[in-house]
């Protein structure tokens, strides 16, 4: 099947198998390896991307379901070499260590903030429940998301 996806602002068109998962489309077909795969049970959130601005686990979506829609991956978040405020906030608050969960975590946070769900610590903790991090213990991620949601990430 033919898909046409507005991928990080550019049109991405490919012939794909109907069973191809979006995450594999992104990584193997489009060559965007920033989106990671951490599990096989849609539990970890490492594969989170934005589909029409809302976060989805790209291991639970077929590439064909993204046809005609807009997908933002971590590669599409920074503009003109400048980190997005949420990315900058993660750096500012040391919200990442090994960085494997980070692309998914940042995109989940961007979506959470856009939905107005990042108002306080409890909301952020609940809102990020679908994204696992084994390194940080979440405290600095939560601080980063609260700050980034206000557009306060110190741009670097």
């Amino acid at each position: 099947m033919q898909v046409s996806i507005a991928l990080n602002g550019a049109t991405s068109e490919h012939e794909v198998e109907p069973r191809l998962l979006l995450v594999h489309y992104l990584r193997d077909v489009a060559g965007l390896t920033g989106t990671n795969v951490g599990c096989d049970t849609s539990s970890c959130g490492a594969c989170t991307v934005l589909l029409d601005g809302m976060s989805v686990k790209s291991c639970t979506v077929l590439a064909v379901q993204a046809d005609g829609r807009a997908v933002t991956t971590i590669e599409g978040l920074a503009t003109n070499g400048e980190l997005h405020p949420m990315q900058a906030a993660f750096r500012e608050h040391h919200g990442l260590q090994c960085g494997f969960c980070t692309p998914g975590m940042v995109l989940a946070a961007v979506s959470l903030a856009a939905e107005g769900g990042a108002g306080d610590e409890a909301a952020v903790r609940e809102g990020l429940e679908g994204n696992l991090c084994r390194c940080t213990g979440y405290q600095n991620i939560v601080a980063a998301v609260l700050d980034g949601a206000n557009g306060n990430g110190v741009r670097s």
Partner: protein
Amino acid sequence: MTAVMGTVMGTSLRRKEDPRLLTGEARFVDDLVLPGARWLAMVRSPEAHARITAIDATAALDTPGVEAVLTGKELREAWTQPMPCAWPVTDDMKNPVHFPVAVDEACYVGDIVAVVVASSRYAARDGAEAVDVTYERLPAVVDLEDALSDRVLVHEGLGTNRSYTWTLAPDPPAVDRAFAGAAHTVRARYVQQRLIPEAMEPRGVAVVPQPVGGEIVLYSSTQIPHILRVMVGLTLGIPEQKVRIIAPAVGGGFGSKLNVYAEELIAVALARRLGGPVRWTEERRENAVATIQGRGQIQDIELAADADGKVTAVRVQILADMGAYLQLVTPGIPLLGAFLYHGVYAIPAYSFECTGVFTTKTPTDAYRGAGRPEASYAIERAMDEMAHEIGLAPDEIRRRNYIQPEQFPYASPAGLTFDSGDYEPTLDRALELVGYEGIRKEQADRRASGSTRHLGVGMATYVEMCGLAPSRVLASLNYVAGGWESATVRLLPTGKAQVVSGTTPHGQGHETCWSMIVADKFGIDPDDVEVLHSDTAVSPLGLDTYGSRSLAVGGVAVELAAQKVLDKARLIAAHQMEANEDDLEFVGGAFQVKGSPASAVPIQALAFEAFTAHNLPDGMEPNLAEQVTFDPPNFVFPFGTHAAVVEVDEETGEIRLLDYAAVDDCGNQVNPMIVAGQLHGGIVQGIAQALWEEAVYDEDGQLLNATLVDYLVPTAAELPNFKLDHTVTPSPTNSLGVKGVGEAGTIGSAPTIINAVVDALSHLGIRDVTMPATPQRVWKLIEEAKAR
């Protein structure tokens, strides 16, 4: 914040590593683009123990894209040696022969029995599912005491499931005397359940061979490229210099990537055989059985105390679950805790014994803390027991028994020398942070009111030995390698610095911290320092990252190498300024005649002079580049006190973590932001052991919770913010005064939580809760207590 020295160290400099990780530019193994690479998939035993009677690959070979299926028999001649175990803890230790692919018998669920080679990831997986293996089922043995009875043998040929018994008993009669004369004794059994490390990046391997020259490049998500290179050479009979290992971005390890894995060796063997690149990426479900697990101990601990509550002796016996085979350092893990069962207390009489036991389960090995969380848990739980026995408050018994500041360096009863410590201030501060007095009062009020939401406060003071390790001490423990670390520091012609480190970061921020050390030394910007690592062609000397060693050994090597560069630069400066070197001072990145800023020559200019070599002192070699190998004279001994407040709901058994404070002392802090991050993550892994995580096996040796749906890695929603503070007691044994911090959080947190849970329920007559303290388990304990 505590500055070590200079202007950069001691600050929370934001990490250099972050931009590439935040933008998706970082490359993990599975991200590598390798045109033409074949994919491997492992056929794994679904049985815990079985003879392999037949392997039929017909259907697999008919699967589109599948090129080959290789069995253990067919690959047998690829190995010149079995899988390595680098820690034969006793001379008579039993170590079953273990090849990367099982030949006749599978000994745990997940043991590899065949390998599929295919043109794509999916074809390889489809092929693996189509391989038809016939097993003759053998009995499994899961329980440690059952295994020790030898009712069922894991390895028939060994004649026993006992791998070894290792003893540390400097003076057994003294221990016996202490118990005989004790006013109080306690005896307890604690179970350290098996844990799955669950680094978020599953393992990955990619091998690119150069068939003509014979070189191979192995990309692996490993913590130990240097050790792996030696082992790949030995196991496959490849000259070591032909093997290059690269650990690209690595997504967490926690000890689970401190190993030499079958898949790494299989990929190298097949890449050589096929003459082209091959790759493999682990799936999460596979990771649960194919990557090592942690803990797995039964601990029997006894304490003796006098009438004043001074603890006089500790006696410990441990059964340690090895799993089916000995991986790289499996048998040595309990030894890393063996010296620490007296904890932070001056307990004169000491006896420790550990027996390693084979079971038909995934091998165990290092997981965050490796032996030390177990030790800290046992002594800190037992101290609470002793406090209860005597009728002392838990903080009071600790105060009465702490090793006192003036006793350092402290000659421990287990034979170590503790470098430095001052324990009581960390207890005071931790209790202050959780509002200890207030909590006690509220606890009493709730109990008086008959509330069913029981409040508890728990504490634990830990000490650990890290900074692995003095090579001679490792020799005395039968470990086959040393514990040094290497660093090279270069000043390039343009005055920029380059550091080559033998440590292998996978989240710890070495690029940032090593840059800070060098920036301060030379008075330059940390952004002008480049740190190279994790590639044996770039950094040929190193012993990698584990055991909270990177800063205390590797970072110190960086500091020493930078100092050597500076010393040489001083000679060049003195020569060119025609001054006596003793008359020079190094200020703001430049040498000058003391008190004479006008004479200043910046370090960058000296770097260029060293490069051109036009005007150097007679006999001096050109360039500013120095290599140092630092073999630490001792371990370092970080410590701290953690305190937690929990609420246990009597109706449901649910535990809510209301407050958590950690006051840690890792000596001087190079980057307090990174220290705090290490503590946060470490604390959560310990809390997770206390409350949620356990690899659950049934009696047939099947892992029941292999997926992340069933294995409860904590999410942000279950956790509070932690209150952190620190004290600073520098280590006198290294030039930076630093200690390790990567494992400290994990070592302190599990006993803190369980002490708090038991404290909450103590008025019901409950004295222990087995980890993980799940709601079902706690509810059942409460029901039983009420029925008594």
